[in-house]
């Protein structure tokens, strides 16, 4: 390291991320999935709700590449449209959870005292409810739609992030470099943003990936119970669960295998990305 030029932190990060083959693979696969889900609907012959009477329970053919479902809709179209919904619900609801959870968790850990008691007990209360029942209740109150499902899953997810960041901030706060920052006269806001958060945020990235996966699965469960995305609109969840009977399971795998595989591949790639991010953001993992 003889050069005196400032190495860009971002380039450094990118270099480290690229060291991890699985992370690259995950990123590529996820990008492909997102692109497919956005672009393909313009080229598909059928929309998600269109019924072709001839495709009723039909196996894959040149007309319907992945066959037809139990009311004659094209499975490929539903898979692509359903991917849009599932990814939207997963990503946006997690984003909502993060936006609520992180500030609350940081506040609780940094200021302690009664703020801490209120926020963390509230988190405990949220977590003590069986979330699926609470979500069912709330969704039935506001009416099932993609937006309500997303918002409800998002709002109910905040304690996971609040607790994680709370624990991390508590431990980072006791580090000597925070005392060092106080000793050189740093302000509270700068201590939080420059010293504590950068050192406490890495596990959150992993949690985000888990939460996106969990939100996608939650949405599937809701769809199954009739409170999620309503047919004829498609989501991977309601495709999986509408194809749940034993005859379909054993004799018509084209109805449930594609959404199942899509779900697994998506969730795996998201997790690989999370692991790659974690390693790349840790300054202690060396390049090479």
């Amino acid at each position, binding site marked *: *390291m003889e050069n005196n030029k400032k190495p860009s932190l971002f380039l450094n990060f990118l270099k480290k991320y690229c060291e991890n083959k699985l992370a690259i693979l995950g990123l590529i696969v996820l990008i492909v999935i997102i692109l497919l889900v956005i672009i393909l609907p313009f080229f598909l012959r059928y929309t998600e709700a269109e019924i072709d009477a001839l495709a009723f329970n039909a196996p894959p053919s040149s007309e319907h590449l992945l066959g037809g479902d139990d009311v004659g809709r094209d499975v490929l179209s539903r898979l692509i449209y359903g991917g849009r919904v599932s990814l939207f619900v997963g990503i946006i609801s997690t984003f909502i959870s993060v936006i609520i959870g992180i500030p609350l968790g940081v506040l609780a850990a940094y200021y302690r005292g009664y703020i801490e008691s209120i926020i963390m007990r509230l988190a405990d209360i949220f977590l003590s409810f069986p979330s699926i029942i609470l979500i069912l209740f709330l969704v039935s109150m506001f009416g099932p739609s993609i937006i309500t499902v997303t918002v409800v899953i998002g709002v109910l997810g905040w304690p996971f992030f609040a607790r994680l960041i709370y624990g991390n901030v508590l431990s980072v706060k006791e*580090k000597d470099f925070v*005392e*060092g920052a106080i*000793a050189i*006269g740093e302000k509270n806001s700068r201590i939080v943003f420059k010293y504590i958060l950068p050192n406490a945020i890495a596990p959150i990235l992993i949690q985000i990936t888990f939460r996106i996966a969990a939100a996608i699965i939650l949405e599937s469960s809701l769809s199954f119970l009739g409170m999620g995305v309503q047919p004829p609109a498609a989501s991977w969840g309601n495709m999986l669960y509408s194809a749940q009977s034993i005859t379909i399971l054993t004799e018509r795998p084209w109805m449930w295998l594609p959404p199942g595989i899509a779900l697994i591949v998506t969730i795996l790639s998201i997790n690989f990305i999370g692991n790659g991010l974690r390693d790349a953001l840790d*300054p202690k993992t060396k390049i090479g």
Partner: protein
Amino acid sequence: MVSDNKNILTVKDLKKHYPVKSNFLNKDKKVVKAVDGINLAIKKGETLGLVGESGCGKSTFGRTILRLIESTSGSVLYNGNNILSYNNKEVRSLRSEMQIIFQDAGASLNPRMTLGEIIRTPLEIFRLAKGTEVEERVIELLNLVGLNESYIHRFPHELSGGQKQRVGIARALAVNPKFLVCDEPVSALDVSVQSQILNLMKKLKETLNLTYLFISHDLSVVNHICDRVAVMYLGKIVEIAHRDKLFNNPSHPYTKALLSAIPIPDPTINRERIVLEGDVPNPTDPPKGCRFYNRCQYRMEKCASIYPSIDKIDDNHFVACHLYHKNG
């Protein structure tokens, strides 16, 4: 101790008690008396050593006088002003006068900042340099502590222990402080590096007119760098003296025991080692009289009930022990 104008820092009856969490069945509130009534004056330009075993309150004391920990009672006069009554804004401005060097230098540096950023931060907070001056000053500080400017874009984890401590010193010196609390700055380093850092600190003290409170448990290090030495036991100072007096004529039984534990690098010398019996008492429930009562080989009846005041037994030599009280 007579306070005179040359004292940069005067500590009066400083106490820091930590409440011990009591559950609701057990209501009696216990406190850990980490610092329990310390009187001390530090003269401008001197290095005062503060020694004692782990848990005796040395580090708590060092942080309390910097207001990194809020005290329970007492006063700390810095150049005549009681800094314990300062509000937050005043405390922040005080940071440019008083600084701290940490024991674990690695942990005291933000792992996500480069050395340049770390050293630049205090300059920006106190607006000590503008524009290109900032970079120049950072390089100047790095050179001052014996690092060259190629380190400016490195991260703390790329450095050795000694280099990290050099950065810790550079950061502390960035604001041109007058007084530095050195909290065991070399005890985490290996011996060869220790002497380099100690000599650096000695040199800096001369060139920058600094005053040090040097906290340590290593008596040979203290002997090397300090002008005066205070010995602390369980939240109290038991003996304070000029270095030579303390090392040649230790008076408090605890100091004697401490000094007898310094290894001598000569196996042929036979020395009587005072081995203390028992343990340090529980700081939530220290002995009523002398804190050292239960381990002292010279204990007398009154030691159990009366805490000995700290008295002068010689020029620059104060001891808190009944053995040296002439009357009563």
